[in-house]
Structures are given as structure tokens and as C-alpha cells.
């Protein structure tokens, strides 16, 4: 039940994965384990194929997405690094978040003049997201080479911040209606 996704794919635990070779490996393992290949086999083998394919699909879904992959690695190797669920405001963003919330309130009260302010806040946060993703990519590579707790902790902080900003951008988009 608790088989490691990386070992199922026959690879070392890593954060910076090559998506193309992961996909190739996914296809190979699908050809090996998909229930379609076991339709004429005994029930016990069919069950094994079903279990393995479910695991394969769950693993591929998790590993192909950088954020989900990182959460998975943290859940297995980052003991004590709790998922912040993006609830806490990253301290360096306090001021910008405050301003965006003001704009949101004004827009909600029918003040259309707050739109440009909200739009530029959204643009800023979207740009910040790309920066975080680039930072994450660097931390991913570092962890793959050193595998230390300090790097995982940095990944955790970046992921929490990322989650918070994604929520901000979504809220702004919802309010702006486009």
C-alpha cells in the first residue's frame, strides 16, 4: 500500500525530474501493468495488475507536477515540515497584501476606480509567482545533490508562499471577472 512512488518508477528520490523521461517510463510501466494486458489471466493476477496500475497512475500524477512532487517529497523526507496550507501571510508581502485587500473591498462596494489598482496588484503577484518557481527550481536541484534538511526547509517556505500567492491571484481574478 505504502510503496514509494520513486522506487516504483525505478528512480532515485529527486525534486528536479525530467518530465519527458518520466512520461516514457510511465508508458513502459503502463504497457507492463495495465489491466487490459491481464484480461485473460487468473483473477489474482488481474487484482495485482489493478493494484499496480492504480499505484502507477497515482504516482505519475503526483510526480509529474512539480508542486505535488515537492509536497510528496516533503511528506516522506521532511519530517516536521508541516504543510502551511497557505494560510499565513508571508511577512515580506504584508504591505502589498494589505493594499490589494483595500482595492478588493472598494471594488466590492462598487468603486470601479479600484480596478486598475487591483489589476496591477494581480500583475505583480503573477510576476512574483514566476520568481518563486525559478527559486524552487534552484532549490530542487540543490536538494537532489545534497539531500539536506536545510534545503527541504527552504522548499517548504517557498511552497507555502507560492500557495498563498496563488490564492491571492485567484481572488483577484474572481473579483475582476476576467
Amino acid at each position, binding site marked *: 500500500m505504502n510503496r514509494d512512488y520513486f522506487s516504483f518508477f525505478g528512480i532515485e528520490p529527486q525534486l528536479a525530474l525530467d518530465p519527458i523521461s518520466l512520461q516514457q517510463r510511465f508508458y513502459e510501466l503502463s504497457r507492463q501493468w*495495465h489491466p487490459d494486458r491481464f*484480461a*485473460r489471466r487468473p483473477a489474482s493476477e488481474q487484482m495485482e495488475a489493478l493494484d499496480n496500475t*492504480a499505484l502507477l*497512475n497515482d504516482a505519475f500524477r503526483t510526480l509529474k507536477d512539480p508542486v505535488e512532487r515537492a509536497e510528496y517529497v516533503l511528506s516522506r523526507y521532511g519530517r516536521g515540515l508541516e504543510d502551511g496550507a497557505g494560510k499565513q501571510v508571508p511577512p515580506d508581502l504584508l504591505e502589498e497584501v494589505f493594499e490589494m485587500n483595500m482595492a478588493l473591498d472598494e471594488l466590492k462596494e462598487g468603486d470601479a476606480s479600484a480596478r486598475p489598482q487591483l489589476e496591477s496588484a494581480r500583475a505583480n503577484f503573477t510576476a512574483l509567482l514566476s520568481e518563486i518557481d525559478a527559486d524552487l527550481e534552484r532549490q530542487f536541484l540543490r536538494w537532489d545533490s545534497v539531500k539536506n534538511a536545510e534545503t527541504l526547509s527552504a522548499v517548504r517556505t517557498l511552497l507555502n508562499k507560492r500557495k498563498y500567492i496563488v490564492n491571492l491571484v485567484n481572488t483577484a481574478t474572481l473579483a475582476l471577472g476576467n
Partner: protein
Amino acid sequence: MGTFQIDFGDSAAPVVVGIDLGTTNSLVAYLDAGAPRVIPGADGDPLVPSVVSIPAQADHIVGNPACAALLTSPADTIYSVKRLMGKGAADVQDEVKLFPFRIAAGSESVIRLEAGGRQFTAPEVSAFILRQLKLNAEAHLGRAVTQAVITVPAYFNDAQRQATKDAGRIAGLEVLRLVNEPTAAALAYGIDKRKQGTVAVYDLGGGTFDISILKLQDGIFEVLATGGDTHLGGDDFDNLLLRVALEDIASEWGTDLSSSGEAVQRLRRAVIDAKHVLSTLPVTHIRFAWEGREYARELTRENFERLITPIVDGTLQPCRQCMADAKVTPEKIDEVVLVGGSTRIPLVRAAVKRLFRARPHTELDPDKVVALGAAVQAGILSGAVEDQLLLDVTPLSLGIETMGGLISKIIHRNSTIPASATETFTTAVDGQTNVLIHVLQGEREMVRDCRSLARFDLKGIDPMPAGLPKIEVRFLIDANGILNVTAWETRTGKEQTVEIKPSYGLTDDQVERMIVESIDKAEADFQERQVREARVEADHIMAALEKARRNDAYYELSETDRSAIQKAHNELLLVYHGDDHHLIMEKIEQLNQATHTLAENMMNTAVNTALKGTKI
């Protein structure tokens, strides 16, 4: 010995057929030496209309003959039953008004239809259609067919899939796989082409709409995302036209025909004919005659298009959502495949072309392509097709009810199947011995906005203080898109009893009972058919004898031969009206033996006459 080595290996292996169980038409296909082929019915037509007529005092009829019955006995004739699969009465309130058949009381969780003075669930009616396809395949292939792949709309939920599987079981078919219709179509297109790239399949059938986006690479057909509406299709176009025509007639004739089943069905036929014509011509007439009065209304393609535009537009939002889910833009779509009869409508084609900016593929008949693809999938399962593999997804998110009517999603839509999720549950009260889990499907956050799938009752938990038992529950969506649930106590590792209460559809016991009934019925049917066939054969031989008695050869027979023939003939007549086909066949054989000399003599006479003829 051993001069020839004939390989009979394949003919001994059971054949797996592919079935497209459609809203309007159904088809069966098989893989013939690597190429999928549709199988024609007795009338030569591979398209079996999904219509079942169940008269009060006679056997049910299926397909083209049932279409005729739709006009003469509409109240006992069921069509578009697919729209009722996995549904409760409340789901179909609106369209029921236009159906000529009745829905029985107490159809909240399973719809029961009344026909011929009896009641049938949707899976039972679908089983009639499946059994007809099974018979057609058996007659064509000359061997028993017991295993099938059946297609379903990609957007079918768990209950609708389960209902389809139940229908197969009731019809005596082991359903090896349910395959999504758009995916099947992609398989049919991809079979002989080493295609790479991204393909969108737009499938607008009689009652359902599906959109799927697939990635093709090295024989792998990976579905990236799917979407649709299981309640949108050609039937809706018909119903729109029907409403217009009924209103028109009401104002023209001063009579409301909508309560007359027969009139409505005739008018429905007329609007469908007009709809079909408008796919090739710019203008036509809806023509309808009733009780000596005639109605003819001009219908232009322009008017028709204006009428159906909202419905066609309704298919575009799921397409955009599907592209977003698949993380592709229209430019990334290499090809578009059209499936379903409604894609013959020029407005539909234009809308698809505009949206995906690619010319749609129509090389394969949109009515047959799904069945052909199902046959390919049947080949994959039987091992006949080795290099192709289909990786499909679940169309709807799976969630469990949590506090306050909220849903916690455990498997997200567009996850490749089989997919699983494991959750831990515990008790809330001291000594609690069971835990109830409510499972739903849908994308919304609240229980009331999603489709209830089932309640799973974890039973027989040892009484312990609250929160102490730890029960792991594994939710597994299998390759058919159907949910399986298993549970175990984590401390003891003991498997937990799970009682399933489906919200819509039949329980396993109910299906079992239907299977037993249908086998009894099928055996009776089979008996009757054999008797009928034996009588037909008896008719043939007796007619031939009648003719031979006028031949000179008959008089050249010895007295003994003639009386032997007479005796055998009399004995056949005696058993002819009985219901023992073995006895009839035995007496036919006896008569055959008795007339052996006669036949030889006749042959000689014929040869002699012919020889004489050549001399002259």
C-alpha cells in the same frame, strides 16, 4: 500423414465483440483478422435502432420492427432508454412529458417503465437490445458470443456505468470493459496509422455529448481530459422541432395533439426526417397527416439553425474547459474527430471547426466509428492487438461528505484510471460499531450540488472509546470508471465489512434476480425459436415432396418405397404442431431417408432430360 498444418487455434478462442449501445442506434462489431467490422442484422442493416416494443400478449421486438411499433403502439414501445440509465424519476421529469411510455410510481432511485402490462428497469430494456446484438453476432459468426466490450459516454457517472454493466449481465454477456465512446472513436481512427500528436474527439450523439482530448504516442492513447453533458444530444433538437410543430398544429387546427401518443410519434418521425434532409439541403418541409388532415410546414436550414444554436453553443463551454484541463490551446490540437449522427449537421461542423481551428475528420461513418473502436478494444483485451493501449480518465471528481454538507475531494476529475485514494476514518462516540461514508461525484463544493453515488456502511467495528478505531478505506476507480471500496482496521489489519447502498440503480441482488429471470426467459425463447426453425424445415421438405409427387419419378418408385414415404410423411405431420423440435427434426430425417431413392430417380430423370435436350 501430416501433409497440412491447419491452425484452428483462433477459432477455438472465444470471440469478444465490441458494442456501441447508443441512444438512437446500437451496433455490434468484431475484429476480423486485425480489421474492425460491423456485423449486420438479419435485415442486412448493422444499425439496430435502440427501440424495444413490448406488447401485452406477445414477445418483445427490437430494432427496425420495433420502430414500426412505435407508430402503432407507442405506449408499449420504449426508445432513448439510454437517457434513463442510472437515473431516478426526479432526474427526467421534463423529458418524460414527451415520452409515449409511462414511468411507474416508486421510481425514485430506479426508474421502472411500464410496457405491455409489465414493468422494466432501464438496464432490462437495454438488455433486450444487447441480446438482439448478441444474436446478430452469433448468427453472423456462427458461434456463441459471451464476452463484450460496451461503450459508454465519457461523461457517464458511476451509476450510469454500473447500469450499463448490469444490462450486459442481464443479457448474458460478460462485460470485459466499459470504454468511453470518444476514446473508442480515437482507437478506430488510430488503428492503422502510426499517429503522434494531440487529438480532440467531439461526440454529439442522440442523447449525450462528450469531448475528449487525447495524446497519441507510440500506440499509447492517453486521454488528457474529458468533459461533456450526458443530457444533451440530437433528441433535444427533435424535441425542439416537435414542440414548435405541435404548437403550430394547435393554432392551425385548433387541436392539441400532445396527449395522443401515436400522433406525437408520427410527428416526431416527420421532424426527424426534416432534420436529416436539412443536413444536405437548405430547405425542406415537415409533412404530417393525421385523421384526414394534412400539415406541411416549410423549414429552412436557417430557421433550424436559429432554433438549435443555444444547444450547439452549449457544447462549446465543455470543449473550452476540456482544453484548459488538458493544458492545451486550440493551436496545439493537431486533429479533430467527429462522432455521432448529430455531427452531420452543418452548424455543428462549423462550430467545431471555428473552435478548434482544424478541419474535422469524417472519413469514418460517425454512426459506426464507436462500434469499430469498441472492436479494437476487444482485440486489445483478447490479445489480438498488442501494440495499442488505452489510458483513460475519470470524468468526475470523487468526494466524501464531511461536516456541514461539504465535500472533501479524494480523486480529482481527469485522473488516469485505475486511480485510488486511501482515507482513514474513526468513530465519534464511545462504543460506536459502524461508520457511514457518503460518497458523491461532481465538481461543486456542497453535497447538495453533487450527485450522490452511494453510502458505504463500515460495519462490525469493535466497541472502543471514540477516536480509537482506525479504519483505512481505499477508494479505487477501476479501468471501467466504476468505484470499488475496501476497508480494513489498521491495528488488526482485519478486512472490514462494507455494506453498499447505491443511491441510484440496482443492488447486486436485484441484478442477480434479473439474470435468473432472463436466462429462464432466454431458454424459453431459444426453445421456441428452435421449434419454429424445425417447422420451417419441415415445411420445406413437405413442399418439395408435394412437387415431387407430380414427377414421373414418383410413379417409377416401388410400392414399398411409396408407402414408406407416405408413412414418414404422416409421422412428420403428427409431430409438426408439437413443441419438441428434436422429434420434428427426427421425423424430417426419416422422411429424408425414405425419399432417398425418389431424389436419385428425379436427378437421373433431370439429367436424362437435359442430355436429350442437347441432342435435339
